[in-house]
């Protein structure tokens, strides 16, 4: 349905005027909250996420979990009731929310240099203000920026984006194109996956797909997603550099 419009049939333009390989507007700010150790605010189109990081700090159950040789990463996600099209209060024990939390925590556990902070906990708090597709990808990107702002060492950026396929629209297999960065309407109708890469290369660290699709389309979608991640990484890198330059320019030593 999102691709049944005349503009797609004529010019292959999606609902918001993008072509198949164009990202939505990505706006990111880092160090938005002075009180937190690290914080960030990220918008991917209309999906808006705030992230704050606290830590590394001593874990509450110090004696019980004291055997860890590296820091533990805990993720909390709060999805605002006004974030979707209809008002909906989601509890913390929601299955989809816990799966997202687990994905984000395990992606960063593998990437951060957690062995430098034994017996401590890094707490990541995500607040979703507005959802319009690519929620997990936006959360991963916002968490990367906030962890960099907190000064927690990591081997590279983890950047994520979604990629989908026009498969349900085109009955003919050869005509199915991959699509990059789906918005909310497209996510409801088309099959899509979220791919997260480590840096600008081709190392995939997160790959989640919940819809069903033919195997043959997977490679094209993955290639489009990895390419989108490369673009996102350069945008986020620019944001970090601009912020760092502003800090250094104004610091009086």
């Amino acid at each position, binding site marked *: 349905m999102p691709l049944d419009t005349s*503009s797609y049939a*004529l*010019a292959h*333009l999606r609902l918001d*005027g993008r072509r198949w390989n164009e990202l939505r*507007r990505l*706006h990111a*700010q880092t*160090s938005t909250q*002075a*009180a937190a*150790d*690290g914080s960030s605010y990220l*918008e991917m189109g209309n999906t808006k996420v705030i992230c704050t990081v606290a*830590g*590394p*700090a*001593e874990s509450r159950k*110090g004696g019980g979990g004291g055997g860890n040789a590296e*820091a533990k990463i805990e993720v909390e996600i709060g999805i605002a009731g006004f974030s979707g099209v209809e008002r909906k209060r989601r509890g913390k024990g929601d299955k989809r929310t816990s799966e997202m939390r687990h994905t984000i925590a395990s992606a960063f556990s593998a990437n951060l*240099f957690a062995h*430098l*902070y*034994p*017996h*401590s906990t890094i707490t990541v708090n995500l607040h979703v203000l507005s959802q319009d597709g690519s929620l997990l990808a936006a959360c991963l990107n916002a968490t990367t920026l906030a962890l*960099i*702002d*907190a*000064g927690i*060492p*990591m*081997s*590279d*950026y983890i950047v994520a984006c979604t990629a989908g396929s026009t498969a349900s629209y085109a009955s003919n297999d050869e005509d199915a194109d991959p699509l990059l960065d789906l918005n909310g309407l497209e996510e409801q109708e088309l099959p899509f996956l979220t791919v997260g890469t480590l*840096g600008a290369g081709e190392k995939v660290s997160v790959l989640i797909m919940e819809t069903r699709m033919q195997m043959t389309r997977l490679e094209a979608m993955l290639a489009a997603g990895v390419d989108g991640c490369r673009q996102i990484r350069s945008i986020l*890198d620019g944001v*970090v*550099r601009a*912020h*760092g*330059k*502003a*800090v*250094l*320019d*104004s*610091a*009086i*030593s």
Partner: protein
Amino acid sequence: MAITILAPTPAAPVPTRRLSSEEGDSDLDSDGDISMSRPTKRRRTIITPGEIVTDDPQWMRGHGTFVSGEDTSIRSTLAGTLQKTNKLLSIVPLRARYMPEIGDLVVGRIVEVQSRRWKVDVAAPLLASLPLSSINLPGGILRKRTSVDELNIRTFFSEGDLVVAEVQSIFQDGGASLHTRSLKYGKLRNGYFMAVSGMGGGAGVVRAKRQIFTFQTTRGGEVDVVLGVNGYIWIAKHIEPETAGKDFSITRLEEQASGTMYSSQNDEIEVGTRREISRIAGCIAALVEAGVKVEENMVRRAYEASLDADAEMQEHSGEYLGGAKGRRVVELALGMG
């Protein structure tokens, strides 16, 4: 029908909350320098995580760098600036949690009382520990700690008390061990606690020769300021110790450590002193807000600037130093001296 594609509207500009920088002195850096001198401001570029710092195998890697598996290039793990010390490359982060070093003067809050030591929160990744054997007993008695002392451990420090101490040693996992074996360390009272965060290239408390100093305020008597390197700050009314006027020698420690040193009772603090304490706290908050490093000289200049700013204002707006008045105070403080 022709389709026109409009360019997306740009995002709102980020409001800059920092002052414009002045042309301060910049140290010149020479490669191969042994001391930790920073490079000139113009040449400092930001390095981001995952970026290759160098390919040259002659460099050794220090803090904030790692060697990726495939090639021998050194990559950064932090966002920060590069620091070269002889052949060692390390990255100084823009902002990082306080990491304790031996000899740091820190202000901490007791969070746990264990059988023979206390656990202290010093804004570090791990709680610091203060062993019972590292504190001065009241009355200045020098003796071995017995089980009676362990049973009375809460009479010395209890949960929630504030203590100023020095880092004696660091454990393997990075946790600090503190001691208060000097008359200038110990329990804090009669004052106001504030926490400033942020270290590294940005604002924060710097390690300096004097972390504890005294103000002679105009209307409030004397005020002590303790700047903990970990970002915790204590501003208190100055109470003259009983040892003032007598000479201080190590053999008379037992006579000079007072019996009330572990009392949790505050003394009477006059209104004028309270106003001056809140004025100094406002100065420090304004300095941190503007990204200026907090140390004794800057705090003194900011205090005098706040008095000047008060004289400038037509109406007496009290001691509140936030917002526009705070920025004005920092401008004046940077301008003088």
